[in-house]
């Protein structure tokens, strides 16, 4: 045994110690585990600690910190040592949490229903009507099942006498259960031997119950219920947990924009049309849920969701408005409410709480500030807890003035000395005592409440009593030791059947298709504009004819790639120096500046830098669809943009690199992604973009029949083919054939049309919706190419005609893009179930 493990572990007399008893002997339920730890060498401990750290990194477990200036997400912290609780202690917790969940559900039902608790003076109106979290439009929007509160979590602390107390209720859409599951899966791999020896209660049945319960609470009336997990999206602090939960429960992870309410029914927008949603596990804040009736500025919600809830057509857990119970000020009222509503005594006490809205309570608080922690009554108010004992005289006087002016806005709680649990100190190479709180989870099922046999235990990062993941705390797995030894592997769900394998991936949210579509369009747009800009830069660096440069500039302008010059500035500058030679040099300088800006300046709306940014942002929304290499290449792309003061040479070199990267991206798109339905949209996006770009530049080239056409071959990436095939200078007829008509050239206009038609067939899209493109391509195909070999007016007329046809094709490409958006992404105007077959 390594005495050193406990050498620096000094329990405090003033606190309860989870591991050691009063005479510093390990409590019985810790002995088996401690014996194992002590049999390990320090080196082995370090290895396991590193293993835990590396698993978290490789599983990508993160926690987003709003206030963190260093970055959006940071790695989750998990301590090597679990918190262990014996069955008899957890039994008390289970009973108390189950009772409290029942109580809170009953209170919630009353507040949004009959409101008798207010009328009888059992709850102060200030704690209901005074709260922004009380959502008036949710009145009466309660489910027939009576389940208003569906997922409940409660923070518990243990006082020096060993009893557990309630610190706070979490009723909005409590986070943490998914992290607890992740912690378990990590520690299970770190201590497989301990799990063999100890009867640790498994967590999986709890998640099975959530899944099963949601299916049964959802009003499906005989249909196969579809339940989704509604998340605010990747910027939410606990997004990672939403991903784990969705995966564990088998619910599609959706954002507000993925859902649509039609005629009081809620639908999921999928690439195969609208699918009715029967249940929503909600992780989106209450007031953001429905911009029609709640916060109008919410872009995260679903317009009309409340009306679907009111009509009883969708079950939302937790019920919208459940956040009203998060205020600590209600705590003092629960003992009486429990007697009144349940006819039971409240099993677990809450730490002493004084709501200053009551005169006697305020008087007590003002005279005992030094022993109390002051918090806002309304959790929506931003205010950090104030520890009374840290205030000087002036601070105390200021606080008293604030409380007196708005007594109902303040709550005081006693300052609890939290129990200590051991953490592995990496530097100390020893166990160290740290303040600890437990978050325990419960879920409603049609049969009643089920409490997760475990917890998310959180520990203070230092010696102190502030325990919060936002403040850099760490977490622990929590082992409840059951009666029987039945070790089982975590996350071993039932085996997939062949049917599951076949149907997986059917409900692809439209958003995924839409982001892939735009990733494809932007990737292609970046490549296309890079080619044109490089053609321009190369000519600017050479001496020689400026005619092609003019053509390129005009083609760029037509595509919106170049910055729009401020009125008269460029012209005025040229006018200062009237000499012909200088004028040309100056025009060159102005052009060079324009081209470099188009490459480097993200403020140029259609420039390369801006489009690379858009590509990155669309692709990051569908990051999970890409291989690591693919994503790596994409995430490096914006960094390839040179500085704004780059020389022509530097800019042109950067363009080479960007083009290479774009070509690699195209390769990934072809060869590195599953070709499911959503992939067809990536392909479609690429083809439509290439079609419109090629049609636009070719149409422009035809407007100047006599001009040199080498630049067009460069823009269409066809110069090598042309030279190999014709071994002569570019002439109008062969160039046009190669860039427009040649269906074997992947950079020809008609090749894109074929690919698009092929993709549309894959998607079983009805022909009439895309008739415009078919008509335009038919006219192109029928165009007599011979006429381009004519001369004079006949040639001019032929060029004009073909130019018009190409412009039509370009417009048809844009129209198709709009039509795809409506049909597959926004589902505007389409009847439920009758969209794409």
């Amino acid at each position, binding site marked *: 045994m390594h005495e050193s493990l406990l050498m620096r572990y000094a329990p405090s007399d003033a606190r309860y110690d989870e591991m050691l008893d009063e005479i510093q002997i390990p409590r019985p339920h810790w002995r088996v585990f401690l014996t194992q730890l002590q049999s390990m060498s320090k080196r082995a401990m370090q290895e396991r600690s590193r293993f835990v750290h590396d698993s978290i990194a490789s599983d990508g477990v993160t926690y987003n910190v709003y206030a963190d200036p260093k970055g959006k997400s940071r790695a989750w912290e998990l301590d090597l040592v679990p918190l262990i609780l014996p069955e008899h202690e957890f039994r008390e917790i289970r009973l108390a949490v189950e009772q409290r969940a029942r109580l809170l559900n009953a209170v919630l039902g009353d507040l949004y229903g009959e409101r008798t608790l207010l009328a009888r*003076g059992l709850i102060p109106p200030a704690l209901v*009507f*005074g709260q922004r979290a009380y959502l008036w439009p949710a009145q009466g929007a309660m489910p027939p099942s009576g389940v208003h509160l569906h997922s409940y979590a409660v923070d518990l602390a243990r006082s020096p006498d060993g009893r557990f107390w309630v610190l706070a209720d979490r009723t909005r859409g409590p986070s943490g259960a998914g992290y607890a599951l992740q912690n378990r899966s990590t520690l299970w791999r770190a201590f497989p031997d301990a799990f063999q020896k100890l009867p640790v209660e498994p967590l999986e049945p709890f998640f099975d119950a959530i899944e099963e319960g949601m299916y049964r609470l959802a009003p499906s009336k005989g249909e196969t219920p579809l339940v989704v997990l509604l998340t605010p999206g990747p910027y939410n602090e606990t997004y990672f947990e939403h991903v784990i939960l969705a995966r564990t429960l088998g619910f599609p992870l959706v954002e507000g924009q993925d859902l*649509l309410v039609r005629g009081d029914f809620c639908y999921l927008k999928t690439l195969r049309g609208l699918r009715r949603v029967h249940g929503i596990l909600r992780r989106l804040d209450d007031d953001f849920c429905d911009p029609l*009736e709640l916060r109008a500025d919410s872009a995260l919600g679903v317009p009309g969701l409340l009306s679907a809830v009111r009509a009883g057509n969708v079950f939302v857990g937790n019920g919208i408005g459940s956040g009203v119970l998060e205020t600590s000020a209600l705590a003092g009222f629960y003992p009486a409410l429990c007697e009144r509503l349940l006819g039971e005594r409240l099993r677990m006490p809450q730490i002493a709480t004084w709501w200053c809205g009551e005169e006697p309570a305020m008087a007590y608080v003002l005279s005992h500030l030094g022993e109390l922690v002051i918090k806002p009554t309304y959790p929506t108010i931003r205010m950090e807890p104030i520890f009374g004992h840290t205030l000087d005289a002036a601070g105390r006087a200021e606080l008293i003035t604030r409380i007196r002016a708005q007594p109902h806005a303040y709550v005081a709680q006693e300052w609890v000395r939290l129990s200590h649990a051991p953490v592995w100190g990496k530097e100390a190479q020893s166990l160290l005592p740290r303040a600890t709180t437990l978050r325990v989870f419960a879920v409603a099922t049609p049969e009643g409440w089920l409490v997760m046999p475990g917890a998310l235990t959180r520990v203070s990062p230092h010696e102190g009593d502030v325990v919060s993941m936002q403040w850099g705390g760490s977490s622990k797995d929590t082992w409840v030791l059951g009666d029987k030894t039945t070790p089982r592997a975590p996350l071993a769900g039932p085996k997939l059947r062949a049917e599951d394998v076949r149907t997986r991936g059917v409900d692809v949210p439209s958003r995924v298709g839409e982001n892939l579509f735009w990733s494809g369009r932007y990737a292609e747009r970046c490549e296309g504009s890079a080619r044109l800009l490089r053609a321009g830069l190369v000519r600017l660096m050479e001496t020689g004819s400026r005619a092609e440069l003019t053509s390129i500039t005009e083609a760029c302008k037509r595509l919106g790639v170049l910055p729009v010059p401020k009125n008269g500035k460029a012209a005025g500058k040229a006018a200062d120096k009237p000499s012909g030679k200088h004028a040309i040099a100056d025009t060159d300088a102005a052009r060079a500046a324009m081209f470099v800006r188009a490459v480097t300046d993200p403020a140029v709306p259609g420039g390369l830098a801006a489009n690379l940014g858009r590509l990155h942002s669309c692709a990051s929304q569908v990051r999970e669809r890409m291989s690591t290499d693919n994503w790596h290449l994409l995430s490096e792309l914006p960094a390839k943009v040179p500085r704004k003061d780059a020389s022509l040479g530097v800019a042109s070199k950067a363009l080479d690199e960007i083009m290479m990267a774009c070509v690699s991206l195209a390769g990934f798109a072809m060869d590195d992604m599953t070709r499911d339905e959503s992939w067809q949209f990536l392909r479609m996006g690429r083809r439509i973009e290439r079609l419109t770009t090629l049609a636009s530049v070719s149409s422009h080239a035809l407007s100047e029949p006599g001009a040199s056409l080498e630049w067009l071959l460069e823009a269409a990436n066809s110069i090598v083919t042309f030279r190999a095939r014709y071994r002569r200078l570019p002439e109008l007829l062969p160039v046009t054939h190669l860039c427009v008509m040649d269906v074997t050239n992947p950079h020809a206009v008609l090749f894109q049309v074929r690919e698009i038609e092929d993709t549309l067939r894959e998607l079983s899209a009805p022909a009439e919706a895309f008739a415009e493109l078919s008509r335009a391509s038919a006219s192109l195909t029928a165009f007599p190419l011979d006429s381009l070999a004519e001369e004079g007016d006949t040639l001019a007329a032929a060029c004009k005609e073909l130019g018009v046809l190409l412009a039509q094709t370009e417009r048809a490409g844009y129209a198709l893009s709009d039509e795809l958006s409506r049909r597959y992404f926004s589902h*505007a*105007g389409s009847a439920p179930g009758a969209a794409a077959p």
Partner: protein
Amino acid sequence: MTARYTVLHETRYTYEAPVGISRQVLHLTPRGTPYQTLLAHQIRVAPVPDISRDMVDPFGNAVRSFCVERDHDSLEVVCESHVEVRAREYPALTGSPPWEAVRDGLSYKAGRTLSPDELTATEFLFESTRVRNKRELQAWAAPCFPSGAPLLVGVSGLMHRIHDELTFDPKATTVSTPVMDVWKARRGVCQDFAHLFLSCLRSLGLSARYVSGYLLTRPPPGKKRLIGADASHAWVSIHCPGYGWVDVDPTNATLVGEEHVTLGWGRDYDDVIPLRGVLLGGGQHELHVSVTVSPETSSSMGAEAGDPVRSMT
């Protein structure tokens, strides 16, 4: 004294790009009260909605909600109401209870049962989206409420103070200007006057609600009534124990009488927005609102484009 009115409230949105789905909630149906009867009422929407429903909001106001689920470039809502308004009897201002007693009567005492009327009063006692509870406002309103002053004497004093110190100026504020900015600038329209009044009263611990409606305007002597020149109006209603709710109009410094038509009430403007909606598509839009309140003897019904900007007195 009774009066009958026809209220024609027309709203037209013209969109730059087609709207695919439009969901709207309307607070445009005049509320039945002891002093107001809704005789006839009709809401016409173009294009014809795919779904349309009447319901009652949490404050007891009638609400029409509808949804248009196919492409449209414009949306027109024409609401025609025929109402009878009767004179109200107000208590003598000096006969109302002392304001501190009213305030303390609504403060929480554990286990004390609230009458339905008192419970309703507590709904309008606290901050809401547009109404702030501020120490500065409490101090500013305090001179109108000396110790022991009858509630309605204080309310009347505050109403005159707001009327005298604020300039009616439709250009000074927008529909979303915060009430504290209104207070600092001392300018705004009826909605701003009402929100400031409410903020002062609630900061003092009194219960007061926002009333949305219309006001009959008088054409200049010898001129015909202009169709569409009227506007939506807003005022404030104060809970006065022993009497009920007393409606006062701070924009015009008057008690509300037979020339005010009530649509409905809530904690503030956000609870009773005449038209509130969410669109899919549409881009920029142009809005035309026109309101006409005509005494029923008048035959001058018709429609004409109103003030395209914000129509609010």
